[in-house]
C-alpha cells in the first residue's frame, strides 16, 4: 500500500502531512515493489545460511547432504549477493530519482519485470540442484542454461535502471545549469554508472563464453578468458552493493543523528574515487590463476590498495558528521558526543554498528589486497568470513536501517515498533560478529572454503579437531542472524499494514555544514569520470584480454562462435 497522489492529497488536507507529486507517488510504488523483492530474498536466503553452517559442522549427521549443501550455498549467494542488492539499489534509486530531482523513469516497470523474470528463471535450476556453481561464473563449472539466461536477464533489467538514472541526471543538469546536482542523486547515479561498467564483464562472459557452450553451439570454453572477464565484475560488484550503504551514511545518518553532513565535497570525492578505483582491480581475485602475468597482478594490487582511500574518507566524514550531531545534542569533551547521540534511533544505531564492522572488515580487506597474504589465505574460510563481515555486516545492516527510514515515508504508516528495530539491529550485529570471527580463525587454521561437511576431513583428524569449537560458535551466530532477519521482515510487514499514520513522511536528506553553491565540474558531472574509467580499463584490462586472441588456445572461442 504505497501513497498515491490522491491519497496523499487527502491526507494533507486532514493533517500536517506534505502531499506528494504524481512523480513521487510513482517513485514510491516502484521503490516499494523493488525493495519488497529485495527483502523477500533476504528472508529466503538467511535460513539457507544457517543450514550450511549446521551441515558443514558435522554435528548433525541427519542433515548432511552434499548436493543439497551446494544447491543451498549457490541459492543463498544468488539471493543475497545478487537479488537483494540489485533490487534494493534499483528500488531506492528510483525512489531517490523521484524525490530528489522529481523525475519519472522511462523504464521503471520494464526494469522491475525483466529483473524479476530473470530471478525466477535462475531460481528454478538453483533450487532443483542444476545450478550448484556457488553463485560465481567461474568455468569450468557449468550450470543449466536457464540459470545463465536468468542471471543475464537480471543484469539486463538492471541496465534499464542504469539508463534511467543517467537520463534523469542529465535532464536535471540541463534544466538547472550551473547548480550542484543533489548529493543523493549524484551518488546514486555514480553507483548506477559503476554497475553499468562492472556488469559488462560478466555479461560478456555469459553471452560470448558460457551460453554458447551450455547451448551446445560451441564445443568448449576459454577458461582463462572467461575467468578474466568475470574478474572484471567480481570486485567492483562489491562496491555496487556497498555504495547504497554509504549513501545512507552520507545523506540520512547525519540528519537522523540531529546534525549536518560534515562535507558535501568530501562525499562526492569519495564516490568518484570509489567509482574509478573499484573496477579495474579485479585481478586480485586471480592472484593464483596462471593465465595472467605477475606485472598485471601488481598493477591491480596497487589499485586495490587505492580503494582504501575513499573508504577512509567515508569513515572520517561520517564519523565527523556524527560528532557534530552529538555536540549539537550537548555532548562535551573528546568523546562525550558519543554518549549524547540517540542510540535508540535505529538509523543512528545501525550507522554506528556498520562503521564498527567496517573498521575490522576494511582492515581485513587491506590485508587481502596484498599478494603475499592473499596467497596464504586463498580458498580458505578467511575469505568467506571477510566478505560476510563487509557485505552481510556493514552493507546489509545499512539496507535494514534505510528500510526502517523509507517504509513510513513510502507507505504513510508509522514504523510498527522502534524498540523491536533496535533489538533486531543489536542481534544482527552480535550475530554477525559471532558468525564471522570464528570464520576468520577457521581460515587461518586451515579450513578450506566451499566444503560441504568437515567429515570429509576425517582423514586429517589433527585439523578437524581444531575446527569443532569454531563451527559450534558459528552456528550460534547464524541462528542469531536468522532470528534477527525474521524480526526485521516482521517489523517491515507490520509497518506496511500499520493503521497508525507516520508522524513525518516528508523525504528530507541531510544538508552539509556548507552547502555548495557551485562545484567544480568533475564533482558535478559523469563525463570526465566515464572517460577516465575507459582509459583505466584499457590500461588494466586491454592487453590481458586481447592476449587471448593471439594465443593458440585449445578450441578457444574468444568472442562468440
Amino acid at each position, binding site marked *: 500500500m504505497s501513497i498515491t497522489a490522491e491519497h496523499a492529497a487527502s491526507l494533507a488536507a486532514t493533517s500536517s502531512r506534505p502531499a506528494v507529486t504524481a512523480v513521487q507517488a510513482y517513485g514510491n510504488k516502484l521503490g516499494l515493489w523493488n525493495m519488497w523483492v529485495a527483502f523477500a530474498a533476504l528472508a529466503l536466503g538467511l535460513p539457507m545460511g544457517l543450514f550450511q553452517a549446521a551441515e558443514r559442522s558435522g554435528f548433525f549427521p541427519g542433515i548432511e547432504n552434499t548436493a543439497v549443501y551446494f544447491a543451498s550455498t549457490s541459492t543463498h549467494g544468488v539471493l543475497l549477493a545478487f537479488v537483494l542488492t540489485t533490487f534494493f539499489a534499483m528500488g531506492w534509486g528510483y525512489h531517490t530519482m523521484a524525490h530528489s530531482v522529481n523525475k519519472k523513469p522511462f523504464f521503471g516497470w520494464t526494469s522491475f519485470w525483466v529483473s524479476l523474470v530473470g530471478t525466477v528463471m535462475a531460481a528454478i535450476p538453483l533450487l532443483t540442484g542444476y545450478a550448484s556453481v556457488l553463485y560465481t561464473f567461474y568455468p569450468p563449472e557449468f550450470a543449466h542454461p536457464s540459470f545463465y539466461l536468468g542471471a543475464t536477464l537480471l543484469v539486463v533489467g538492471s541496465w534499464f535502471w542504469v539508463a534511467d538514472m543517467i537520463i534523469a541526471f542529465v535532464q536535471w543538469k540541463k534544466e538547472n545549469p550551473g547548480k550542484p546536482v543533489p548529493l543523493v542523486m549524484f551518488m546514486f547515479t555514480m553507483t548506477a554508472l559503476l554497475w553499468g561498467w562492472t556488469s559488462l564483464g560478466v555479461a560478456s562472459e555469459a553471452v560470448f563464453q558460457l551460453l554458447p557452450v551450455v547451448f551446445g553451439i560451441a564445443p568448449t570454453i576459454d577458461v582463462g578468458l572467461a575467468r578474466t572477464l568475470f574478474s572484471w565484475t567480481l570486485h567492483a560488484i562489491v562496491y555496487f552493493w556497498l555504495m547504497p550503504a554509504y549513501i545512507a551514511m552520507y545523506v540520512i545518518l547525519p540528519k537522523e543523528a540531529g546534525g*549536518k553532513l*560534515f562535507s558535501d565535497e568530501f562525499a562526492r570525492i569519495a564516490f568518484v574515487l570509489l567509482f574509478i578505483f573499484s573496477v579495474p582491480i579485479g585481478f586480485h581475485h586471480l592472484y593464483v590463476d596462471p593465465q595472467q602475468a605477475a606485472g598485471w597482478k601488481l598493477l591491480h594490487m596497487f589499485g586495490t590498495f587505492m580503494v582504501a582511500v575513499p573508504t*577512509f574518507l567515508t*569513515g*572520517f566524514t561520517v*564519523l*565527523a558528521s556524527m*560528532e*557534530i550531531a552529538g*555536540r*549539537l545534542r*550537548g555532548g562535551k569533551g*573528546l*568523546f562525550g*558526543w*558519543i554518549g549524547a547521540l540517540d542510540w535508540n534511533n535505529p538509523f543512528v544505531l545501525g550507522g554506528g554498528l556498520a562503521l564498527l564492522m567496517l*573498521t575490522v572488515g576494511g*582492515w581485513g580487506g*587491506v*590485508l587481502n589486497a596484498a599478494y*603475499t*597474504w592473499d*596467497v*596464504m*589465505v*586463498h580458498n*580458505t574460510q*578467511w575469505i568467506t568470513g571477510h566478505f560476510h563481515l563487509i557485505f552481510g555486516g556493514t552493507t546489509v545492516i545499512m539496507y535494514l536501517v534505510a528500510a526502517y527510514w523509507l517504509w513510513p515515508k513510502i507507505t504513510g504508516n508509522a514504523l510498527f515498533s522502534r524498540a523491536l528495530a533496535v533489538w533486531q539491529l543489536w542481534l544482527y550485529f552480535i550475530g554477525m560478529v559471532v558468525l564471522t570471527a570464528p570464520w576468520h580463525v577457521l*581460515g*587461518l*587454521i*586451515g579450513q578450506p572454503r566451499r566444503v560441504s561437511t568437515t567429515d570429509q576431513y576425517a582423514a586429517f583428524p589433527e585439523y578437524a579437531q581444531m575446527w569443532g569449537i569454531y563451527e559450534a560458535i558459528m552456528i550460534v551466530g547464524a541462528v542469531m542472524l536468522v532470528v534477527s532477519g525474521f524480526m526485521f521482515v516482521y517489523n517491515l510487514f507490520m509497518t506496511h499494514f500499520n493503521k497508525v499514520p507516520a508522524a513525518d513522511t516528508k523525504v528530507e536528506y541531510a544538508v552539509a*555544514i556548507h552547502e555548495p553553491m557551485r562545484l567544480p565540474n568533475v564533482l558535478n558531472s559523469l563525463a570526465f569520470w566515464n572517460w577516465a574509467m575507459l582509459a583505466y580499463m584499457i590500461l588494466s584490462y586491454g592487453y590481458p584480454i586481447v592476449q587471448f586472441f593471439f594465443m593458440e588456445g585449445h578450441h578457444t572461442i574468444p568472442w562468440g562462435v
Partner: protein
Amino acid sequence: MTPEEEKKILATSPIGTWVILAIYSVLFTLGWLGMYALFLSHGPVH
C-alpha cells in the same frame, strides 16, 4: 542551545573523530604487521 553556540560547534574541527581515526590507524598498522609476523612465516594455508 543558542544560535551562536550552534555556529561555534559547526565551525569547530571534529577533534574526537581525528583522535579515533588516529588510534584506529595505529591499531590498523600494528594489526597488519602482527598478522604478517604471526602467519606469513608459515606459508600458504593447506
